[in-house]
């Protein structure tokens, strides 16, 4: 499945929404905690960077398929995703537990 080329406009809006989640919502960063939220079905949205190793990406997608949680393939690598989260480290996958004031979940579910 080839992801459609993300236009600059929607990409920036995802970044804006992600920044709002970081400020007002609950999230976890990193593979181990993402799997934890998937197992307990606490996660509402999973974001995976594009340079996440394919085995790990498939594993997260499989868990999300079982728990019916939306997965979004972020249009950028782990460096970009870390920057989008406002962190100074790389983030390969993250899980949004509570979006706070952001409408990121509604907007991404509408796309899917």
């Amino acid at each position, binding site marked *: 499945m080839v992801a459609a080329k993300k236009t600059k406009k929607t990409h920036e809006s995802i970044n804006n929404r992600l920044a709002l989640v970081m400020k007002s919502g609950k999230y976890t960063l990193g593979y181990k905690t993402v799997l934890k939220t998937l*197992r307990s*079905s606490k996660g509402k949205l999973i974001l995976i960077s594009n340079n996440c190793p394919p085995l790990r990406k498939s594993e997260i997608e499989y*868990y999300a398929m*079982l728990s*019916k*949680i939306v997965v979004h393939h972020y249009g950028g690598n782990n460096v970009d995703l870390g920057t989008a989260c406002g962190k100074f480290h790389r983030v390969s996958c993250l899980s949004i537990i509570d979006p706070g004031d952001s409408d990121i979940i509604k907007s991404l579910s509408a796309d899917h």
Partner: protein
Amino acid sequence: MVKFLKPNKAVILLQGRFAGHKATIVKNFDDGTRDRAYGHCLVAGVAKYPSKVIRKDSAKKQAKKSRVKAFVKLVNYNHIMPTRYTLDVDLKDVVSPDVLVSRDKKVTACKEIKAKFEERFKTGKNRWFFSKLRF
């Protein structure tokens, strides 16, 4: 949004002696217990898979090849890969956490699980569960 680590879920163990073996969840402990402060579950699985039976096998040989050896184990959720399959065998009354306290209780529980697994294998259902995962 859907909890999938429920009893009767087929899982694959990833670590330990039974890595790569298939098992079914009997009981979940999502929040852990005092002894094990992490999410874990009690699983009953296949220790030794039944061998391939061919047409020219005698009845005695077929019976011998269709044997299943079972195990009971408490496994961390991190050491488990859930699958989309389920195995609807009622093991709740046979297997409980106090089975693992003493060795002879464990052996009798494994014998009963073995009987139930063999019975299910002979019906030809859940073929995926009783086939060895090759890796």
